[in-house]
């Protein structure tokens, strides 16, 4: 299990200390290290972060204000030199709250707890039949049944539903992780298909609604295995 981590702290020693501590745990992969919450926000919006090491008091946007702006809730470890934020930590339901300086035993204790939580979550089936996507500042619910296919267009993905096409600022990887893998499959580098919406399949293409979607050679065998073929 690889856990994607983001470190946010305005103090250089604290950032480098956390980088060192994370490097001692092979499960942790540092995606980025940010010196402010403003710098972290686009990172958190454009990719899925599993674990956020977050300082509370930072100039400009505070750590807690950053949490209010997030489109999803990663596991959060608040790191602070004050104990006064314990109540906020409880209210924001963060995974842990560590007082700085962060010792190795305390760090390991927090990380062990998070790994356990993430393993349990990964083992349980998806609880929802839909996904919320951020469009023009709103969170729009898209039932999985209504999604026909998803197309990658660089920095954005197009989600074609039975009613319309939504353009969302995210990556295919992020979106793929949120979908029900029993219904959806990456059939090509740039396409995810809803398997129950396929009309027909030819040699290297499939059709959903009026769209001809390419099937990559690498994914063809898996696709055929997953279909109920007579």
């Amino acid at each position: 299990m690889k856990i994607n981590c983001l470190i946010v702290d305005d103090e250089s020693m604290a950032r480098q200390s956390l980088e060192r501590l994370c490097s001692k745990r092979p499960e942790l992969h540092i995606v980025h290290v940010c010196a402010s919450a403003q710098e972290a926000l686009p990172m958190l919006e454009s990719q899925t972060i599993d674990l956020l090491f977050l300082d509370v008091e930072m100039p400009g946007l505070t750590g807690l204000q950053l949490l209010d702006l997030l489109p999803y809730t990663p596991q959060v470890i608040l790191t602070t030199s004050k104990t006064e934020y314990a109540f906020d930590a409880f209210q924001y339901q963060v995974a842990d709250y560590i007082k700085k300086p962060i010792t190795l035993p305390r760090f390991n204790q927090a990380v062990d707890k998070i790994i356990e939580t993430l393993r349990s979550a990964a083992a349980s089936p998806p609880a929802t039949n839909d996904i919320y996507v951020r469009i023009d500042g709103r969170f729009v619910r898209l039932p999985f049944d209504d999604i026909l296919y998803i197309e990658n267009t660089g920095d954005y993905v197009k989600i074609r539903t039975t009613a319309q096409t939504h353009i969302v600022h995210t990556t295919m990887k992020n979106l793929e992780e949120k979908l029900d893998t029993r219904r959806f499959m990456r059939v090509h580098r740039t396409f995810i298909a809803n398997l129950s919406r396929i009309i027909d399949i030819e040699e290297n293409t499939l059709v959903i609604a009026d769209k001809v979607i390419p099937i990559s050679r690498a994914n063809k065998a898996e696709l055929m295995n997953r279909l109920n073929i007579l």
Partner: protein
Amino acid sequence: MVPIQFPDALDNTILQELYADDVNYATLMFELFLSEIVPQVYELKQVAEQQNWPLFRQISHKIKPTFGMVGITQMEHWFDKLEAAQDLQSATEIIDVVHTKLAQVLPVIHSAHTHLKSLQDEN
């Protein structure tokens, strides 16, 4: 695993919990403290004289936990006081105490840093 030996004047309990036998990590933190944190401690007086209290509190809060990283946890108490300082007179009094205490302990920090670098060279 051989724990690093730090000078007795430093809080060895916290230093062992932070670094155990990781000489490279400890060396990096001592280096950063000397190169980045110590100058900021001396700049605090100037910020107080400008009566820029939001910046003063921000710097005081930011650097407070770094003292624990080099085993001088007792300094954190004075930084709690600095964070709460509301006027130039009280801030200046506390800064003077901080500067005096830091001047007393800096030779020990430098000595610990030199020792860590020699351990790094041995490895």
